[in-house]
């Protein structure tokens, strides 16, 4: 699905989302009333300091205006921009700041929804799609924490061997199904029906702000231990004096 | 990965009263030893999980010497090994015993 098609299906009444060299900023009217703030990354660009600062500015502007509508984060990105300049300028702070803005907004009542419609990886993934309350995907999305060639280089295992191992566990290999099993992606939307409607259903159903991804990962058998370990530590910590 | 286990009679109970100690780290050429006071006073067990396969004879020799020199009675030692050299293994085992024998501060 192209960006334009996706936006048209999300906002059939029109929108003011602009793609400026891969940085998506704007808003659009919701089916159930009100407007959604939209930020995002398009055209599979890498997310560096210059991109991140614009996205966080857009979120903060919405917060300053006292907005309470949802924030939609559309993602088709590369990984973080791997460059001397970005590291020199403190890319970790820019990405963390963007994530913080999204999480803060969500906790202040601006539900955040990530929509992964293409690729994403590593630090860019963390600062955008994974910093939302719920993440959904379109068919064909390609999340990739770590690419197999890089993994092959570090583990000194051939790509074929890695692919073979990936059949027994979703825990390391790239791909939408694997990420869904570990609990990162709540659901994959149907691109044949109205995205606006699916968004409305999602917004209506998800009222609880708690992070349920580890429970989801356990149910889907992608992350057998995370939820239980986190809960045990949580309980021990609260009991301890 | 290879799993090895050795049980020995020890001449004496390891000193001290601590029930647990841990030393080392699992890294290339290094290992961690978790030591627990959980066996009868004259028993000693060493369980090993190692990345380097086929060195059973060396482990056996290292552990026999260790039990003879340190008399770690009552101790169960569990090893996660990242392919450490035998002298490093011997050193960590000895350090683990010394650590559990120390009084709590």
């Amino acid at each position, binding site marked *: 699905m192209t960006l334009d098609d996706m936006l048209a299906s999300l906002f059939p009444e029109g929108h003011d989302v602009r793609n400026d060299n891969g940085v998506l900023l704007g808003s659009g009217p919701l089916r159930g009333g009100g407007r959604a703030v939209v930020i995002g990354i398009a055209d599979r660009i890498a997310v560096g300091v210059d991109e991140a600062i614009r996205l966080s500015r857009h979120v903060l502007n919405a917060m300053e205006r006292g907005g309470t509508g949802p924030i939609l984060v559309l993602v088709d990105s590369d990984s973080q921009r791997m460059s001397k300049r970005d590291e020199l300028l403190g890319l970790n702070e820019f990405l963390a700041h963007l994530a913080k803005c999204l999480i803060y907004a969500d906790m202040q009542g601006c539900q955040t929804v990530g929509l992964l419609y293409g690729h994403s990886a590593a630090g860019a993934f963390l600062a955008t799609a994974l910093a939302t309350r719920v993440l959904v995907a379109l068919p064909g999305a390609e999340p990739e924490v770590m690419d197999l060639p890089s993994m092959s280089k570090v583990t000194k295992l051939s790509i074929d061997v890695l692919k073979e191992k990936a059949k027994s566990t979703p825990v390391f290999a790239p791909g939408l199904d694997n990420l869904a099993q570990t609990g990162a992606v709540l659901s994959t939307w149907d691109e044949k029906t109205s995205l606006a409607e699916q968004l409305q259903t999602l917004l209506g159903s998800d009222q609880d702000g708690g992070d349920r991804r580890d429970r989801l990962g356990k149910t889907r058998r992608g992350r057998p231990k995370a939820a239980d370990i986190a809960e045990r530590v949580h309980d021990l910590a609260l009991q301890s004096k | 990965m290879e799993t090895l286990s050795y049980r020995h009679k020890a001449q004496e109970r390891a000193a001290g009263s601590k029930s647990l100690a841990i030393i080392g780290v699992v890294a290339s*050429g290094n290992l961690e030893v978790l030591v627990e006071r959980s066996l009868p006073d004259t028993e000693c067990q060493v369980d090993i999980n190692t990345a380097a396969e086929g060195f059973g004879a060396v482990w056996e020799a290292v552990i026999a010497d260790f039990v003879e020199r340190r008399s770690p009675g009552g101790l169960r030692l569990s090893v996660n090994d990242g392919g450490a*050299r*035998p*002298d490093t293994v011997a*050193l960590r085992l*000895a*350090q683990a015993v010394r650590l559990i024998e120390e009084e709590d501060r």
Partner: protein
Amino acid sequence: MKSWNAQKTTLAERLADGRRYASGKTIEVVDLPNFLEAVIRPADRVCLEGDNQKQADVLAAALADVDPAKIHDLHMVQSGVVLPEHLDVFEKGIARRLDYSYSGPQAARVARLLFGGKIELGAVHTYLELFARYFVDLTPNVALIAAVCADRDGNLYTGPNTEDTPTVVEATTFKSGIVVAQVAEIVDRLPRVDIPGDQVHFVVEAKKPFYVEPLFTRDPAAITEAQVLTAMLAIKGLYAPYGIRRLNHGIGFSTAAIELLLPTYGEKLGLKGSVCTHWALNPHPALIPAIESGWVEQIHSFGSEVGMDDYIRARSDIYFTGPDGSLRSNRAFCQVAGLYACDMFIGSTLQIDLLGNSSTVTTSRIAGFGGAPNMGSDARGRRHPSAPWLQAGKEADPDGPPPLRRGRKLVVQIGETFGDKNVPLFVEKLDALTLAEKLNLELAPLMIYADDVTHIVTEEGIANLLLCRDKDEREQAIRGVAGYTDVGRGRDGKMVRRLRERGVIRRPEDLGIDPLDADRSLLAARSIKDLVRWSGGLYAPPSKFRNW
């Protein structure tokens, strides 16, 4: 009529051919290949200067760039085969025969080219032997050398890394050979003259310093507890009882650990002033804390070490320096010092056999010797006495009449029973022997011969081979410190116990050392940054050693 000055005539011809590319004595870098084709003749003996530290890298690149149709069958006579270009000349057919001393990074490629017949090997030498042969039967026709700067007359400042240059120039220029020097720049006035201009025929302004490998820098952060333990054993079990004042150290981490333990552990043992006062040693950064703590009286060096120049300059009471203040090193003299004027050599190796022979070659690598065997051998020509030398002689031959008894240099091999990638230090058969068989060499490339080795130190203890009375004792003494290697586990327990009772083998506990006390906190410096601090900011380590 026989000409008695044919060499001078040829020299004059070559100089005339070379001057076509020169302005005065100066050659441009771009003209180098043409120039070299003009002054070098097929089958010449050529010394391309380079050892384990400095490299005439620009000249090496130019030589590898000459036309093999014009220049071929050269006989390379040089200390080091270190740069890729040193072997490119063989691959391209520019050179055919090789006599050398050290290769390091190129050791595997040397082996491949030997097997492939691209190199016709004369011999692998120690530094001193090769230098000696420069004056007997391997005198270069052409020497391509490296210096820091030159003046218009060809006077050279070779700087702290003078190393082999005076030796190479001496042999070449005074036997009617041609000397070509690469320098970083041509200046009006040199800091000092290391090589007089009338011994230098041509100078190339390379516009960059010659390459120097920081080979003698050991990061204290990489020293292990086991190395600290072996260092403690060496200090308490060898340095103290023999009272070793004049010595040389190898470049390994175990000896770096010794250097770093002197101001801490050595101080505690009260050894300051009675050991480790005079050295034949490169400017090891790891020795800075001992120097700053007042342990060291003087040091003569084979070469310099990257980043140590300012420190050396500020410590001229310790080092040999010129009127300009910078270090003057000289490999030949320092090797002689290590051979004749030191009471101890201690260094690491890769393999030791049951007799005590040791070697650093493996079947796929021919690393050469460098200078270790010069230092690590008993000097049979030595005549002056010293306490450690006499003591060692007495241990080897307790019944001989003292006035007729030779002393012995202490030649110590130090290492851990397992090295890198858990490869055992002790073996039944050296790879050097396998290699010799494979290559049909008359001699296996041994670093230190068994009859020169006096002690072996590992984390398990010290074996004093001087006290062994027969081959069996010697073998069991070696097995007795070989830890859990196959060789170590093959020991005769009873015999090892007897050797220990006699003090032939000494365990840490026999020396009052608890292996659990061997902690990195004993090191006077635990990082390169600590060394910089000890030096008062004078030591400037190369970037690859920094974490700041």
